[in-house]
């Protein structure tokens, strides 16, 4: 799990233990990836993830903590879904499933196990299908990418803003490459 960096060695060890447990059946959403899912996933990514992981998913420092790079992530789809849903206890990565810690579905932990603030709830909870759409978007458009460029930026923001100005000298670089 590499969405956010561990905050303490003890936490990291504990997390490692829980990661060794199997992912709950209830968390794995086996939705088919369709183009509409990726588009929906981009909107959801922008609303829920871009604050910390940035529009390009590269992460980095900021008031949202030091979010890890989704461009460099090794996680597969199921692990991304789990991380979005369960968060990453002991880090700034919040959980987005409303009942993530009510029945042990996440790492076998229950509410009392995380009551000390180690597991942080997201501002907005997401439905499992929404989480799957974000994961599909990350795999299709973020994971494995190199440096962000103009084409990627415009694909994310559109052309109505100057937000992509700083990539302007890359306009001839063409589409993003994997």
């Amino acid at each position, binding site marked *: 799990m590499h969405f956010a*960096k561990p*905050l*303490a060695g003890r936490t990291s060890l504990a997390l490692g233990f829980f990661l060794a447990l199997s992912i709950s059946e209830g968390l794995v959403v086996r939705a088919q990836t369709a183009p509409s899912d990726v588009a929906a996933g981009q909107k959801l990514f922008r*609303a829920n993830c*871009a*604050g910390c992981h*940035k*529009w390009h998913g*590269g992460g*980095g*420092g*900021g*008031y*949202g*903590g*030091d979010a890890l790079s989704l461009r460099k992530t090794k996680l597969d789809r199921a692990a991304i879904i789990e991380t979005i849903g369960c968060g990453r206890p002991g*880090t*700034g990565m*919040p959980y987005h499933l409303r009942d993530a810690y009510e029945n042990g579905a996440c790492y076998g932990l229950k509410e009392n196990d995380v009551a*000390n*603030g*180690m597991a*942080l*709830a997201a*501002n907005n909870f997401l439905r499992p299908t929404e989480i799957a759409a974000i994961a599909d978007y990350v795999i299709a458009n973020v994971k494995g990418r190199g440096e962000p460029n103009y084409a990627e930026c415009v694909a994310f*923001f559109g052309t*109505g*803003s*100057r*937000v992509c*100005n*700083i990539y302007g000298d890359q306009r001839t670089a063409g589409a993003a490459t994997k």
Partner: protein
Amino acid sequence: MDRNRSRLFGGCALGLVLALGLMGKPAGAQDVTDQRLLNADQEEGNWILHHKDYSAQRFSTLNQINAGNVKDLRVAWTLQLGGVEGGGIWSHGGLEGTPLAENGFLYVTDGWGSLYKIDTHGGQGVLMWKMDPKTDHDWAGAIACCGVDNRGAAFWHNLVVTHTLDGRLIATDKETGKILWQRQVANPDKGEVVTGAPLVVHDMAITGVAGAEYGIRGWIAATDLNTHQELWRTYTIPAKGEPGSETWKDDHDALATGGGSTWVTGSYDPATDTIVWGVGNPGPDWDNAYRPGDNLYTDSTLGLDAKTGQIKWHFQHTPNDPFDYDSVAENVLVDVNGQKLALEADRNGVGYAVDRTNGKFVWALPFVKQFTWTKGIDPTTGRPVDYDPSKGVQTYVASVTPSRTNKVTTICPGNMGGKNWPPTAYNPTLHLWYIPVIESCNRITVEETIPGKSFKPREGFTGGGPSDPIRITGSVTAIDVTTGKMAGKAETPYPMLGGLLATPDLVFAGQPDGKVMALDAKSLATLWEFNTGGGVSAPPMTFTVDGKQYIALLVGQGGAWDKWFIDSTPDLKRIAPGSTLYVFRL
């Protein structure tokens, strides 16, 4: 002046503006002249400067609403504003502005910089016009560290002068709402945005900049309002070889991305023609080993020559800051015991008094309940007692201080302060200085910054980040300025994110859960409370119209709290964004 007369004069003024080809200085009986700004404290029913007057005391002599009758205060009217839409990394805009009031008309801004003129005569609020500057939401919103914010407007003759988050200074005709001219002052391509209200001094608009989390080199700039040209720009981080550059002891040009933003409107001392302005944190925020040295002029108060922008004096609060304890707060100018003081409530949790004629330290007092980063402030120098001038990288209380060897740590106050931008207020009769306090600790995780690799334009350059597993509350804390001692603390369930207003026997405040309250100026007992139903993150102000006193307050959660710090106040997640002007009367 009645409404019709005001409009008549407005029409005359507009005509003159047009006759001048929109270039000259507008004139008319409603002119906000240099003389009126200098005497703003004497316009009892108006509020014509951002902080009420140049001293930034935010004290009104109006006393129709007082300790004896404030229990009867009620809503006179409300007005829905706009600017709630999101942009960049922000899901919504918010309200942090202080309304201006002149002759019964209010001028308020929303987070995206739209300016509204509201006629308040007759016991109601009627929107006269709205100026929408068409702010580039994504360009600015993607690099605004701490919300979609705009803290208000300034008057100059018959113009209303405002900023936009995307870095413009805009002059709007006060009568028609038409934009007469605008100028790009800050550059979002460099990570610069503007959130503060302009300060008009002489015929200049002074602009501060935000962006220390994005590796900017901070500045304060003066625009000539007659020619629309820049008169001066003073960088808060010296260039190589300039005075102060010796306090950046690294070998990788750390001062080029040294931060030092200036995003809170300063104050002005006419007696010495000195602008007093606070400077923000160094960058990267939490990796101070990247930038050994004291890092002037970050975390400092500056005294600037108003005509040239030249730094006349400085006082630094947290040298080589590893906490994000910036010093952008407004300085309150007061005269007590024969001393001419500048008071600053710092994010590091300490209230400071310095001699505003030369920047010499006078006294300091921690005003927060939890204070762990230093063992205290040296009563002679004003430096933290654990500051070691022989060290390039300060460790303060090393077990607490974030560093490359103490990568996860809890600091008190938390990195939001102490006291953030929400303004203090000062009662010159009681000599009490009221501070809107964030009673906090939070957790900092340090990420080592790599020279030549970590900095990228428009990307966060912070050397780590905060998280908030610990409950945060607040208080209104009063300091007796004659003694430098604490006079009282009224604790609040939530952090003070909106700022204060002082009247002869009251202090007004708002809370992020929507409550607005009036406290007794001496005892700080709550005398009145009202729930607005929206998050309050703006300061109250007061004015008169038709001979009656009103209290006005913008309601609609702004700033960074609900995005970055909400885990410390999880019950505030129920507060929805909004954008409403509330006006109260007896």
